């Protein structure tokens, strides 16, 4: 429904070619009639969305400026506040909470830019997982192969974009929860620089590492949405060939399938670089992220775990309880290690503009076999799909998750695999410039269902 990207959609609305009401009504109808196949949504915001669309149409009629995302519908991971609705964070534990008094800060900014939230989206309970298998709201299926996982925890967000029904969605990323499902569903996602986007009105998981960001079907759409969310235009960089690009080896080079290796080679060849860097302490960085997440998540939920443990998704409950039992010494050491790792990365970015790494070491796992192979061992997907994203969360730098384009020589369509582009803190402009160039070169980008 969004041919030409969301800028084209917004322009059709702004210039009166198509009404926001029609666009939103179509999106709602598509979700209502087709989403049973994937289970991306947990709630449709039909009445509110149509009312907002009518307001946009009325303002255009009055000659008002309605913003660059005029009439563009989007979905919201179920941990963002929406005025008048109780935020569930993918759980039933919070159902007694009062409805949110206002929209989350980033949603307010998107609405100010003309965009319209139309649905809440499925996730792992309290964002604690990489699979979007939720005991309360069901499993979100991968639109490219419904026998496979969509990834998580922002699985509903990635999957709904992959269906082509919505052009963008919001997710959160603590350890990879935007990047992992983006990779498995073949869409774009951004974990912005830690702290650059406000978290007001976003239900926390591990506040030391929490970020929010967009997922979209195209690099340019991702950039437009990020600009609206941050309230600041992203600077244009034309000379992408001057970027100093390096590929991460070691930890990031294990168990990669041929499609990923070939894609990484194509990216490096595009930039004319063969530079490979082995980051030291990556495994410990991942462990530090694990310990911080478990400790902060466990502490956050401790009062409710005392009162109503059996209301939690069993997979989440046992992890949160274990986290609540960790000693303070482990948490503090992890936070010290975080500073050391961040300093190491700061040094690295003095001589490098972009680091390239795979996002997930393979395609989406099958739903009935929720394990993956790591170094030849079968481990649970729920905790381990983020093995390549989690260490990078510790540094706080921006990471853009991008789908690799199918190779021209592929005999038949293959399932999505993705890469991470990593830049120095605050340099989202570098990432978007590289992403645009690689998309235009046919190296990055994957089709959504509606455009297949």
């Amino acid at each position, binding site marked *: 429904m969004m041919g030409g990207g969301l800028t084209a959609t917004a322009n059709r609305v702004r210039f009166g070619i198509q009404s926001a009401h029609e666009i939103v009504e179509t999106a709602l109808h598509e979700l209502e009639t087709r989403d049973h196949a994937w289970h991306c949504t947990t709630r449709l915001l039909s009445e509110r969305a149509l009312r907002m669309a009518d307001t946009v149409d009325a303002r255009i009629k009055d000659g008002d400026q309605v913003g660059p995302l005029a009439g563009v519908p989007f979905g919201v991971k179920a941990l963002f506040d929406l005025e008048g609705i109780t935020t569930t964070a993918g759980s039933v534990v919070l159902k007694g909470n009062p409805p949110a008094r206002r929209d989350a800060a980033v949603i307010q900014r998107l609405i100010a830019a003309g965009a319209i939230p139309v649905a809440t989206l499925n996730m792992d309970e309290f964002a604690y997982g990489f699979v979007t298998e939720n005991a309360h709201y069901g499993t979100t299926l991968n639109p490219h192969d419904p026998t496979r996982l969509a990834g998580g925890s922002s699985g509903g967000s990635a999957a709904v974009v992959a269906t082509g029904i919505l052009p963008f969605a919001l997710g959160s990323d603590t350890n990879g929860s935007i990047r992992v499902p983006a990779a498995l569903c073949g869409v774009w996602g951004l974990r912005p620089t830690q702290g650059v986007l406000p978290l007001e009105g976003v239900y926390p998981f591990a506040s*030391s590492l929490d970020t929010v960001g967009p997922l979209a079907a195209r690099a340019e759409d991702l950039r437009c949405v990020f600009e609206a969310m941050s309230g600041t235009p992203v600077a244009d960089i034309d000379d992408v060939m001057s970027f100093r690009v390096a590929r991460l080896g070691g930890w990031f080079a294990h168990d990669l399938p041929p499609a990923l290796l070939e894609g990484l080679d194509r990216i490096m060849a595009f930039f004319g670089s063969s530079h490979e860097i082995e980051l030291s302490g990556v495994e*410990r960085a991942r462990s530090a992220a*694990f310990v911080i997440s478990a400790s902060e998540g466990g502490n956050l939920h401790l009062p409710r775990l005392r009162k109503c*443990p059996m209301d939690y998704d*069993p997979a989440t*409950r046992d992890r949160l309880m274990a986290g609540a039992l960790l000693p303070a010494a482990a948490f503090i050491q992890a936070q010290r290690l975080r*500073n*050391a790792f*961040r300093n190491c990365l700061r040094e690295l970015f003095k001589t490098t503009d972009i680091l390239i790494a795979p996002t997930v070491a393979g395609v989406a796992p099958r739903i009935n076999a929720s394990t993956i192979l790591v170094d030849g061992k079968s481990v649970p997907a729920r905790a381990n799909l983020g093995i390549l994203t989690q260490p990078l969360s510790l540094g706080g730098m921006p990471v853009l998750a991008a789908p690799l384009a199918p190779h021209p020589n592929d005999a038949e369509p293959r399932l999505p695999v993705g890469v991470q582009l990593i830049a120095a803190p605050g340099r989202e402009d570098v990432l978007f410039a590289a992403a645009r160039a690689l998309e235009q070169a046919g190296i990055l980008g994957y089709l959504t269902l509606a455009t297949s």
Partner: protein
Amino acid sequence: MSETEQDQITEVRLLARQVNLPIPVACLPGVQANLAFLRTHVDLVESVSLPDDCTPAYVFTP
């Protein structure tokens, strides 16, 4: 349940008591397994020697 497993469950109960967290019996094996998993990560984090001036990365802007 082996003696080792029984000891591990007893330890989980003791740790839980320290934070006033009653753990339902049905949850004990799952919590124990997750705690054992987390401890492999704690061991890795604690295996690194950091200088005294490397402070924790708490985020606090007054």
